């Protein structure tokens, strides 16, 4: 099954690959994405007061992998990144979610309509071949549930993003998300509760996310594929080294972002 090439819509809707009835094969509906962006606009502008630097690194067209740090009970950081990418590039970011998300009633449908995709290898391959902009959080659920004392320390680092970048010849853009790791930390995890296949039930330290300012820092694209042929993606040593390169770049970006926040060089009152 293929679909029409990505295109901007005459009525200002974001570009997408229509599978024939106004949805792409993963269930993205650009009208729903626009509605979601409007609905969440106040959260983005007034509650978390998101600012960003380096959005010029977001490509106007073509595939790229955004790699970001992850924290905060529920993926609020992913939502702010999604909104920021739409605000600055007009593109619908395709965040890659953990596999268990597809089994969650209602959430699975809302996520599908706004462009979230379940993280199977085939799904991500299809998106990259279609020239989509995807976001991967290599810390996964370990990152979401990191304790407050571990904030801004990158947790267990998966290597799938580096493999994909090498195999599909796409750039990796590190994104430091500053603010998310203080906003809604996990107090403890109920490991016995595994609703819909989730690994645990997170109990946050506050009933709602705290209104911490978000600062997003997009780093310069890393061309991991320049150093390796596509087949090198299968070499675990090469993939691990490439993933480490991304981790180091992101850790530096986070450190710079935290320093800029301390110095008051980002954000500002609105």
């Amino acid at each position, binding site marked *: *099954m*293929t*679909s029409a090439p990505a295109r901007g819509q005459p009525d200002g809707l974001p570009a997408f690959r229509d*599978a*024939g*009835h*106004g*949805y792409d*094969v*993963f*269930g993205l509906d650009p009208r729903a994405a626009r509605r979601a962006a409007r609905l969440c606009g106040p959260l983005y502008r007034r509650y978390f007061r998101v600012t960003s630097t380096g959005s010029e690194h977001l490509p106007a067209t073509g595939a790229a992998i955004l790699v970001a740090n992850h924290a905060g009970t529920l993926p609020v950081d992913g939502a702010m990144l999604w909104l920021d990418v739409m605000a600055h590039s007009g593109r619908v970011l395709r965040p890659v979610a953990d*596999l*268990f998300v*597809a*089994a*969650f*009633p*209602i959430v*699975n*449908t809302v996520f*599908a309509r706004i462009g979230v*995709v*379940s993280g*199977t*290898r*085939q*799904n991500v391959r*299809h998106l990259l071949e279609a020239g989509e902009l995807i976001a991967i959080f290599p810390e996964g659920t370990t990152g979401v549930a990191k304790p407050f004392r571990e904030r801004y320390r990158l947790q267990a680092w998966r290597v799938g993003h580096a493999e994909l970048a090498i195999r599909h010849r796409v750039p990796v853009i590190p994104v430091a998300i500053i603010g998310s790791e203080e906003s809604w930390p996990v107090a403890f995890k109920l490991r016995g509760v595994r609703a819909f*296949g989730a690994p645990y039930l997170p109990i946050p330290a506050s009933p709602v996310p705290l209104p911490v300012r978000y600062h997003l820092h997009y780093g310069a694209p890393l061309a991991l594929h320049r150093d390796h042929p596509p087949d090198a993606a299968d070499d675990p040593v090469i993939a691990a080294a490439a993933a480490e390169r991304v981790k180091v770049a992101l850790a530096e970006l986070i450190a710079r972002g935290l320093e800029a926040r301390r110095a008051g060089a980002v954000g500002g009152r609105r």
Partner: protein
Amino acid sequence: MRILVTGATTPLGGEVGRRLLTDPAVEHVLEAGAEPFLGDAPRLSYRRCDLTRERAVHDLVHGDARAHGVDTVIHLALHRSARDEGPRIHARNVLALRQLLAACAAVPTIARFVYPSSAAVYALRASGPALLDEDAALEFDPEAPQWIRDRVEADLTVCARMGMSRLAIVVLRTAEILAPDMGSQLWDYLRSRVCLRPLGFDPMINVISLEDAAAAVVLAAGARGQGVYNVAGADTLPLSRLIARWGRRDVPVPRPLLAPLYRLRAGATGLEFRFDLNLRRFQFGGLIDDARARADLGYRPTHPLRWPRP
């Protein structure tokens, strides 16, 4: 080409037969079906045949097919009703196919065997990919309904001969043909004015028209090489949109209620839709990726559904 088409009296068989006869390269079409004699025409002959009887299969292949110099066999005979179960249905869906394959391999003129399988053979899981390619896992759940188990066994029966027989074998895992008398679960589902679907799930569904399914079969019959191909239709949309475009009312209902409600419906009206057959599809979708059929067979779905007027 000289072609034997089994299941010729099904809507798909009829459409395939019509398409084959428009091709001047097709010298003769031998049709076999369960219905009484339909009549012959130039380049077309019909043979009534009960494929569950080994003798009938033997006589069809070694008698009529050999006499007509058949070189390609298209096997479309499959029990369509999801209500029927048991050994008789298994014999029609699986044993007849096995016998036909063995008989065809023994006739020197027959070189090609085309079997339209179904996308229902794939295992659908929440953790699975949104687009299933031909390497995706098949449904081996022993608790799955016979309707699915038969289709998986038939599919694998044909696949197992690929490369082991002198026949060039093509398996077409076709999306659901949304047409009457084709055993389409969705066709039956959409006959009610109110369509119930699982609350909180609205998966993407792909359906194929009879014309596109037949076109894929004819392409596979005339192609070279062998293999397994997914064949998707021109219409891909969420289940709720499918219901709305069909002019029906979409009512989300908690999932545990759906199987008993549709059992009641089947008991009261005799309709065939079974929620247990569609349990996973109605939650997790499971579209098929037809990139291989497009590349190797030149297949393109060009006949979207004819949607009823709202």
